């Protein structure tokens, strides 16, 4: 049953430069006995939510909306009535700042204070209880008579926790409690909180920018951006398969959730509290459409206990392939089933890696998905239309391919300029000058010189790595929504491959196009892929979140594949004989 | 072949008068009404002092009228016990106050400031010694000592100025020192010195511009203090009898035995009283406004005291 219900909370601060919006219409509920996590970056309004629940916002803050605790409407109560709920029913553990505790009162006194005030205990009884609380949070009771400045940051945080527990509240709000803690202290706190929830039945709201911490204790998670809720849902689901582009970006930016994946930030800056119409994330979103700039999306349920605020219903499916089959016909009337009933889909802005060994059919699948080869059966839909109409490479915002062999991907006789602007030329896009401009831009994207000298070089004069980048530029000039990269680094030597790959991933992150990355190299894909599909003999045997597939596969073949690593790495699960 | 270390000293550029005036104009325009009124008031006093012979109709030291004449057409503010024109005494008294204020402020302010900068920049034993001296100076009870010393050394404007300077150089020195220390620890100073800047460059280019505004504000404070001190000493009878200071006027008035039982105090005692208060209030409001206008810079350096 819902213990704490927040409805349409709106808060803004009045400053010298006008009104700054902190929270813009947030609603959520906290069930009894659950731990709810609220994550967001600074400026997203998380602390404001905590303060408004407690009713201790600064004088220049104005709020509207209702806060209901156990049926009682808190926000409209007068101060002295709010005081009866404070600490008794709802307590907050503040972020450990320098002066969060009164510097001229002992820590013990401050912990006892609410007990005396709310529970009517005598000082002696309160001190006894205080000692119990101290030992529960792992503080030596000798610190009861110390002053706040004599405690270290971690100890102060525990004292704050002890203080919050002192009156036995139903709800605990924890505001950024890990920011001053080291790894050990963080782990201890995590265990302590889980124990409090399980053993003592506390309900908690954990507010933090530390997603890792929140995901380790919260059962449900809310993602905030610029004062609005972007996504909610069960923690594991939200982390493993985020539905909102912002959530995905946040997870990609956090190095210790998926530890093998490279860290990439979200391009752009957080909004600074000015008012704009439309979705607050719109400016940084790579899949935004017109309405995103005009109307703010509402939070709507999308199944499995999840909610999302997005006009496109979350990360939209860009390409969906159903029951694809394709066989090669050999001269001696035999046919080889290259693709044997494949279902696959790719979401906007996502990197899907298709991993398999030679002859697994991955390249063929790639060509089918691109529309270059017509499948025997099944269909591929891309955005609105079907793919094998074959014209998805003809214009902007379509599908582009980059091939494995750079020497055959580009013609020897073509100059760099001609090679890169070829697609524009073929489709009659733009005049000479515009094409030249776009070519230069594309070359700059892939970090090749855009000087006239370079433009007039023949492709035969370039190295393999350079030619691969020219091919990439050629693909990028058409601003694809989906890029299919077919083993693009296997013909390059190691450092060129590394540079090319980082370039590609950087482009992908910034431009937000989806990518199907085909490779036989597992470690590589772990670094860049969101999802991995393992292919064997024309079938997809396993598909899912990259880390799950690599680190906890369920399919036999996948396990063998993973086990075949012979790297230097000392992790046991790679060397374990399955 | 030795390699010459390039030393950065920018070519001495002429003090840009235009820029300074612009700066002054810019600053004063941000004043409040009180601030602007204070500036005007101060200017009036300065005019009064400089052009005293023109404002006053009679010389102050000469007996030009009946004794204790009430204010009238001949004597604007009446005359004192000896028959000397009071309005003239007020005008010339402005000279005394302003001269003392200016002299003490400039000498103590700049002298102290320079000492503070040097101590703060050099550090080491010079700094330690200066700190001790400043501490002791500031913990001396100034006014009683002032009375005693001026009593012993005899009254003269010169002596008074010297003593006042000795008592008021410590505060600007301390301020200058702490600001110098704060600036010296900044990374951009380290960078400049790494490039080869000599101490004079650093002081001229970085420290002086930062300190000057604060010093100027404290200058006004020092001149207020000096004016009050001189007036106080004169009031007690320890002032220079030849100087026509307002404090002396009040002293003479008070020592007139029946002063409180006669109406004479109205035109003998009140004018110097009001003149003093007016001048001090002008200085005070001016100082307040200046401080407020220069505030963003002050606030940035305020953490270090």
């Amino acid at each position, binding site marked *: 049953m819902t213990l704490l219900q927040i409805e349409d909370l709106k808060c803004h601060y009045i400053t010298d430069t006008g009104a700054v919006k902190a929270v813009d219409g947030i609603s959520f509920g906290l069930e009894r006995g659950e731990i709810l996590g609220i994550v967001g970056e600074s400026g997203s309004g998380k602390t404001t939510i905590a*303060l408004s629940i*407690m009713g*201790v916002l*600064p004088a220049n803050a104005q709020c509207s909306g209702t806060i209901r605790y156990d049926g009682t409407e808190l926000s409209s109560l007068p*101060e*002295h009535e*709010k*005081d*009866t*709920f*404070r*600490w008794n029913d709802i*307590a907050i553990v*503040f972020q450990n*700042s*320098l*002066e*969060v*505790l*009164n*510097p*001229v*009162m002992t820590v013990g006194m401050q912990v006892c*204070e*609410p007990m005396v*005030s*709310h529970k009517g205990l005598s000082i002696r009884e309160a001190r006894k209880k205080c000692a119990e609380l101290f030992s529960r949070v792992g503080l030596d009771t000798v610190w009861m008579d110390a*002053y706040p*400045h004599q405690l270290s940051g971690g100890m102060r945080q525990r004292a704050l926790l002890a*203080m919050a527990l002192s009156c036995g509240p139903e709800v605990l709000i924890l505001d950024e409690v890990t920011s001053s803690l080291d790894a050990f202290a963080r782990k201890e706190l995590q265990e302590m909180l889980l124990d409090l929830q399980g053993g003592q039945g506390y309900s908690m709201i954990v507010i933090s920018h530390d997603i890792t911490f929140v995901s380790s204790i919260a059962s449900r998670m809310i993602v905030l951006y610029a004062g609005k809720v972007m996504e909610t849902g069960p923690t594991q689901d939200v982390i493993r398969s985020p539905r909102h582009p912002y959530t995905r970006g946040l997870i990609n930016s956090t190095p210790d959730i998926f530890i093998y994946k490279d860290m990439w930030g979200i391009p752009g800056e957080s909004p600074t509290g000015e008012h704009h119409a439309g979705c607050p994330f719109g400016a940084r979103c790579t899949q935004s459409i017109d309405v995103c700039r005009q109307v703010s999306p509402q939070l709507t349920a999308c199944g499995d206990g999840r909610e999302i605020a997005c006009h496109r219903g979350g990360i939209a499916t860009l390409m969906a392939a159903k029951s694809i089959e394709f066989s090669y016909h050999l001269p001696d009337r035999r046919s080889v089933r290259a693709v044997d009933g494949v279902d696959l889909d790719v979401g906007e802005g996502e990197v899907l890696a298709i991993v398999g060994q030679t002859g697994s059919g991955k390249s063929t699948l790639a060509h089918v998905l691109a529309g270059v080869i017509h499948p025997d059966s099944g269909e591929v839909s891309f955005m609105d239309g079907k793919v094998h109409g074959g014209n998805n490479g003809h214009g902007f915002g379509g599908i582009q391919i980059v091939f494995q062999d750079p020497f055959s991907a580009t013609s020897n006789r073509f100059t760099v300029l001609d090679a890169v602007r070829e697609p524009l030329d073929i489709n009659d896009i733009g005049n000479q000058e515009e094409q030249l401009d776009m070519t230069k831009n594309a070359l700059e994207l892939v970090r090749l010189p855009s000087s006239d000298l370079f433009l007039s070089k023949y492709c035969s004069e370039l190295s393999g790595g350079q030619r691969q980048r020219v091919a990439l530029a050629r693909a990028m000039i058409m601003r694809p929504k989906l890029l299919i990269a077919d083993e693009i680094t296997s013909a390059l030597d190691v450092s060129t491959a590394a540079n090319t790959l980082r370039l590609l991933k950087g482009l992908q992150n910034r431009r937000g196009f989806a990518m199907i990355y085909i490779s036989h190299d597992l470690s590589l894909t772990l670094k860049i892929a969101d999802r991995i599909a393992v292919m064997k003999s024309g079938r997809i045997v396993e598909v899912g979140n990259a880390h799950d597939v690599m680190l906890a596969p369920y399919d036999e073949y996948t396990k063998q594949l993973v086990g075949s690593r012979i790297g230097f790495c000392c992790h046991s699960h790679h060397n374990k004989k399955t | 072949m030795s390699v010459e270390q390039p030393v950065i000293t920018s070519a001495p550029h002429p003090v840009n008068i235009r820029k300074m005036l612009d700066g002054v104009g810019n600053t004063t325009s941000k004043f409040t009404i009180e601030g602007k009124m204070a500036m005007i008031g101060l200017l009036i006093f300065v005019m009064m002092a400089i052009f005293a012979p023109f404002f006053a109709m009679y010389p102050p030291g000469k007996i030009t009228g009946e004794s204790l004449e009430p204010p009238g057409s001949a004597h604007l503010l009446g005359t004192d016990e000896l028959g000397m024109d009071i309005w003239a005494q007020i005008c010339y008294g402005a000279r005394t106050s302003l001269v003392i204020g200016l002299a003490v402020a400039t000498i103590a302010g700049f002298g102290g400031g320079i000492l503070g900068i040097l101590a703060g920049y050099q550090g080491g034993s010079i700094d330690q010694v200066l700190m001790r001296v400043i*501490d*002791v100076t500031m*913990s*001396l*009870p100034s*006014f*009683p*000592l002032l*009375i*005693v010393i001026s*009593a*012993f*050394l005899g009254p003269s404007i010169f002596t008074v100025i010297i003593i006042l300077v000795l008592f008021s150089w410590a505060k600007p020195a301390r301020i200058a020192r702490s600001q110098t220390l704060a600036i010296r620890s900044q990374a951009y100073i380290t960078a400049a010195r790494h490039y080869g800047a000599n101490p004079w460059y650093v002081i001229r280019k970085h420290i002086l511009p930062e300190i000057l505004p604060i010093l100027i504000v404290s200058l006004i404070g020092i001149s207020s203090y000096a004016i009050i001190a001189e*007036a*106080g000493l004169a*009031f*007690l*009878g320890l002032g220079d*009898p030849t100087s026509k200071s307002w404090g002396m006027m009040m002293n003479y008035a008070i020592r007139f035995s029946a002063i*409180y039982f006669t109406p004479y*105090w109205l035109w003998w*005692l*009140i004018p110097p*009283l009001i003149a*003093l*208060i007016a001048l*001090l*209030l002008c*200085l*005070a409001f001016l100082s307040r406004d200046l401080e407020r206008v220069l505030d963003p810079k002050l606030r940035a350096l305020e953490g270090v005291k």
Partner: protein
Amino acid sequence: MLEKDTREFIARFLITLFVILAINFFLPRMMPGEPFSTTSSSVQGEDVIVLTEEQRMYYRDYYGLDRPVHVQFATYLENLATGDLGKSIYYKMPVREVIGIHLPWTMFIVFSATILSTILGIALGTLSARNRRKRSDRLMMSGLIACAEIPSFLLGLILLLLFSVHLKIFPLAGAVTPFAHYGSLLDQAGDIVYHAFLPVLTLCFAQLTIVYLLTRNTLITVTTKDYIRTARAKGLGEHVVWTRHALRNALLPVVTRTGFAIGMLMGGVVLVESVFSYPGIGMTLQTAVISRDYPLIQGILLVVAVSILLCNLVVDQIYRRLDPRVVV
């Protein structure tokens, strides 16, 4: 072993004391001519002090003017140690006695003014901090600030002229009505208060604004601190938050400032006493200076300086014990 800070403080105290003693000692000896040879000194037509031969002998001996300087200084210190401050020329009594008569009056008005200005300053400052945005507050603040810029003796003079001369409510001079007979202790106390009222008021104004501003600003700063938010969140009630958490932190610097205020007032009390002809140590100093009563001057200077220094020392120690953040 005392803390480093305290050691430094005491060192500074001793050095300052020594400087004062040295000035005290050397000043009269720096005057042109022998200090006790002139028997006529026309100081602005004031009393001419004539020293008898006997007196001159006494002083010569007391000051040891015929002995070398360092011996003189030693004698001087020795005399001080035994509490012998010499004999006043003007009053013809031991300096110690003269000071003993007049010092209590000064102490009385200084302490009264300090207490009054502290209480009033804290009250007004608290009020001002709570009513920060209102027009009336801004007026009060400007008024008090303007008041503070007027030197105390001028303010005293205005009060004197207005209330004693013009309105004739308060007396013109003295600590008590001369030759008065009192019916009861209460009457005597009343008379004392009646005479002390204006001087105390004047001295009070001198400190009031500083205390007021300090209280106000400290309170305003304190109310933005995190621990006030914590206290509010604990549901302790506005009153407890204000007193136990806000005031306790804000008043710390104010209370210690009070101690320094005493020191500052002692410095300016001379002028105020002169204005009101109040027979405290200030007026005595003025008389002594005008009549060139060197022993008395030195004695008063010493007493004033030492009491100010003592005050500062006591205040510093109290502050260290009140604020747990300062290591004692």
